[in-house]
């Protein structure tokens, strides 16, 4: 137990360091925030334009979709502060990954905690103030009960882990593929469409909707967003959370497996 505490303290130290270091990248942070707002603006008006002269489409009101876009954009803002893909690709290509492996910590865990540090920083200084104002101005739908808030937060955390594990796994493929060009673009496309980041799954053609429900990506944004705006409730909500949990477990196992294989490859070839 004491060992576990010590380990946690060490990993939290990585969070603290990257929290402090985050200020050095304030320029990037402002830029990211700007880009986030432009996309919020864009999607807000696209949905507004689509809903023109219509009250509800596929049984969903504009108010719901607008709230969905708001919370989705906020979550995407948070996610954007921790992107392990670039870092791990860089480390693999430069060969620095070897030094990470010989250190007495688990590299994927370290990376996760470091990113949590920069996310905390970005959330406190940029996302939270900005979206507080936006929420006060536009008064979107928000969770109406403490339970709904709790389930939303739970779902957000699960969603983050799913994306994190998948992205890290993908990043590790750099070990086997020198140039990921085309594959990377398919990967990003899959995430952006099937996660429901910009288009809620409700509006998908039937067969695509079914397909999306079987993929892990919907757990990243669609589930938390839908819980937030109250479009997911009752047994549907619990089955959605269960599916999320399932994908967290599966993507975690895949990550560990790929990481194990990558480790063997490094040792086997001496980097």
């Amino acid at each position, binding site marked *: 137990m004491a060992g576990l505490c010590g380990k946690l303290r060490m990993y939290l130290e990585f969070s603290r360091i990257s929290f402090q270091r985050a200020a050095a990248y304030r*320029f990037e942070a402002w*830029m990211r925030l700007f880009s986030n707002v*432009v996309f919020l*603006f864009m999607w807000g008006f*696209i949905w507004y334009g689509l809903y023109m002269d219509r009250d509800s489409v596929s049984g969903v009101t504009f108010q719901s979709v607008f709230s969905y876009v708001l919370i989705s954009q906020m979550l995407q803002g948070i996610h954007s502060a921790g992107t392990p893909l670039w870092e791990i690709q860089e480390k693999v290509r430069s060969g620095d990954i070897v030094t990470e492996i010989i250190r007495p910590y688990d590299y994927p865990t370290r990376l996760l905690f470091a990113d949590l540090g920069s996310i905390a920083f970005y959330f406190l200084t940029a996302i939270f103030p900005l979206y507080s104002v936006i929420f006060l101005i536009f008064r979107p739908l928000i969770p109406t009960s403490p339970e709904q808030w709790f389930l939303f937060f739970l779902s957000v955390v699960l969603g983050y882990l799913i994306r994190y594990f998948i992205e890290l796994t993908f990043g590790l493929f750099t070990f086997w593929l020198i140039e990921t060009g085309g594959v990377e*673009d398919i990967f990003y496309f899959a995430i952006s469409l099937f996660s429901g980041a910009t*288009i809620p799954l409700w509006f*998908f053609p039937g067969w695509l909707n079914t397909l999306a429900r079987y993929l892990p990506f919907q757990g990243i944004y669609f589930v938390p967003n839908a819980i937030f705006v109250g479009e997911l409730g009752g047994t549907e909500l619990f089955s959605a959370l269960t599916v999320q949990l399932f994908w967290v477990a599966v993507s975690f196992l895949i990550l560990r497996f790929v990481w194990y294989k990558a480790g063997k490859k490094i040792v086997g070839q001496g980097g």
Partner: protein
Amino acid sequence: MARSIYNALRIYWYMVEASIRAQMQYSYAFIMNILGWMMHYTGMAITMWVLLYSFQALNGWVYWELIFLFALSVLSWSICTIFFFHFRKLDVHIVQGTFDRFLVRPISPFFHFMALKFDVGALGQLFFSIGAFILAYIKLSLHWSWAEWLVFLGAVIGGTLIQGGMLVLISTIAFYTTRSERVFWVLIFPFRNLINYPLTIFPKAMQMFITFVLPFAFVNYLPALILLDKADPVFPGFWGSLSIFVGILFFWFSYRVWQKGVDRYNSTGS
């Protein structure tokens, strides 16, 4: 004057040829790059299709009209990236000090830097946009007169200059903050997404902004009004034929700002 332009072109050609040869050394990466860009844009077109599936039209624009708008912007973008895409990486040259070499040579640093790379990877976008354009032209059963083809040509050249100017303008930030690549991705990327949709869905202030400040509207929306025979409540139809002039003006402005950036670099270094 004529002689110095001839000389400049000759130097440019020499460097461009060298750059192409250098890129061809990595043929696998080269093909993956082209493939990657095609995937990227195809993904965006599919997303648009999903978006319109339940709604059929966005403010009077149907799916293939949106694809036309999209293809027009990607077409001029792909041409401009051939010449200017590496400008986004100016920050690397400044941080590593390799920009110095452009300042100790007897030719214009802008010109020298521009000739550094001739980005053949942009072919992926070019192929996509031409394909998408032809499909949209057929699906919308368009039959243009020569005047309309002229507007189209003006839009492609103007759009190339406008977006090229944008890349040059963004790279200038590197002289002040030693960062440009990230700025490029977070600034240009959202705006290029924005102009894939008809301008009318956005509020007036934004319409004015992307018409008069960052003149993206001249890249695709305004010419598309003429080419698709649509009307806009604010902008007169003929504005779409002005793209080429706006392009020249904007590029010239960006070029001047870049020169100011070099002056600034001269006084601060990296």
